């Protein structure tokens, strides 16, 4: 099966004598966008980090051979006084200036327009001087610049203002549509899951549900997952959890 990018079998992660992930098994196919949802401490970030091989685990995590993985970590903060410009940050990965500008343009920066002061405020400015939303978009562009075939995303919009949030989701959507980019993303926002994910995994130490969001996300599952009444309805587009 050429389309199988990742196969996870009986994954267990134990951290500080606590079982954080309990016997997870699932597959990821090309073009899938898998959203992982679950309460705080459910092991969502741990799962991503285990998939990337950052943590010791038991079981099998098999990526397709030679696959290139992009990773955008959660809430990265860059020291304000770190002497590294956005341009230099990209140069660490890509030498071609045009290519860098193109990839920044693809995450919504107005690179051509002089009045936006993009060059002065973003490109040749310190990475630490960017706002939360700008930094997040820069990190996405950085992860995408060498065309990975799968993107792992730990809460893409945490600590980001509303307008950047929309840009980011819009961007993710177009990446799926145009490039058939495979994605694994952790999200707190159920409406995002309905809108953008082809598959959802409810995680609370173990797999509570797995499948297309409209099929598997019912009130009962969400109650098991988050406990009590979550007060969420499928058609709500404003409410956040």
């Amino acid at each position, binding site marked *: 099966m050429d389309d199988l990018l990742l196969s996870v079998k009986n994954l267990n992660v134990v951290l500080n004598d606590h079982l954080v992930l309990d016997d997870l098994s699932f597959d990821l196919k090309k073009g899938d966008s898998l959203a992982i949802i679950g309460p705080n401490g459910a092991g969502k970030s741990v799962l991503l980090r285990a998939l990337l091989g950052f943590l010791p685990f038991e079981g099998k995590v098999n990526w397709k051979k030679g696959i290139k993985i992009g990773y955008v*970590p959660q809430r*990265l903060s*860059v020291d304000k006084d*770190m*002497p590294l*410009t956005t341009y*230099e940050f990209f140069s*660490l990965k890509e030498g071609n200036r045009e290519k860098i500008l193109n990839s920044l343009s693809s995450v919504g920066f107005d690179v051509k327009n002089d009045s936006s002061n993009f060059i002065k405020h973003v490109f040749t400015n310190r*990475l630490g001087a960017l706002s939360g939303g700008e930094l997040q978009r820069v990190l996405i562009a950085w*992860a995408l610049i060498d065309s990975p075939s799968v993107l792992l995303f730990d809460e893409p919009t945490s600590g980001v203002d509303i307008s950047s949030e929309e840009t980011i989701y819009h961007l993710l959507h177009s990446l799926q549509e145009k490039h058939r980019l495979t994605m694994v993303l952790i999200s707190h926002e159920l409406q995002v899951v309905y809108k953008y994910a082809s598959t959802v995994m409810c995680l609370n130490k173990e797999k509570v549900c797995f499948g297309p969001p409209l099929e598997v996300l019912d009130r009962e599952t969400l109650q098991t997952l988050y406990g009590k009444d979550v007060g969420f309805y499928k058609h709500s587009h404003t409410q956040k959890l």
Partner: protein
Amino acid sequence: MTASFLFLIIVGIFVAIAASYLGSFMVLRRMSLVGDALSHVALPGMAIAISLNVSPILGALVFLLIAAIIIWYIGETSEVYPETLVGILFTSSLALGILLTKEPDLLEALFGNIEKIGYVEGIAAILLSIFAVITTYLISKGLTIAIISEEMAKSAGYKIKWINLIYLLLVSLIVALGVKFVGTLLTGALVIIPPASAKNISNGIKGYVVLSAFFALVSSLTGILIARILAIETGPAVVLVSVAIFLLTYLYNRIRP
């Protein structure tokens, strides 16, 4: 100016530039005090080397390399960086070193004496400095990305674990050279102060690295000359010049618009 004095200046400049280049990553990684504490480990190594009649730099180097591996191992295996443990390890080796070093050698070991560097040692120091700069340059991309996020560096394919080990081994090499130059107590300054000054006034990493090497050059050159003219110790003179540069850059950073 005699030929041998000129040679000493050149040795000093090479060691200082290499120290500042490695130090520029150390400052960004917020490991400044590791470089400082690491230098204390050199002392017992030097004392044992002197009593065995071998080169003190060699003794210092052996102890420093072992210490670098210990720091690396602790850093890789524990979740939180155990600063306290590193502090205890290094101050205890300083205490041990002071007891082991015979009194006439103690002052030199603590504060260095560049005048005592012979031609063979000097040329070795220059070559090793060049080696350290080139090797650090080769791992500098991975080092820089790991400062932003170690996990992003790993996901981009860098073997961060090994890059960290290579880096720490190079730091111990440079500290061993610096110890002969400015002594165990002040080597930390050679590693930390020029990058700290450069950081005050640079926007990008290229400017930062180049400026810190430049400040290292100016401090060692001026310091050695001032020490010779005023007949004072070289190490403290070099360090104080670099502190003066730091103050100037700090003030410039405060007053510029």
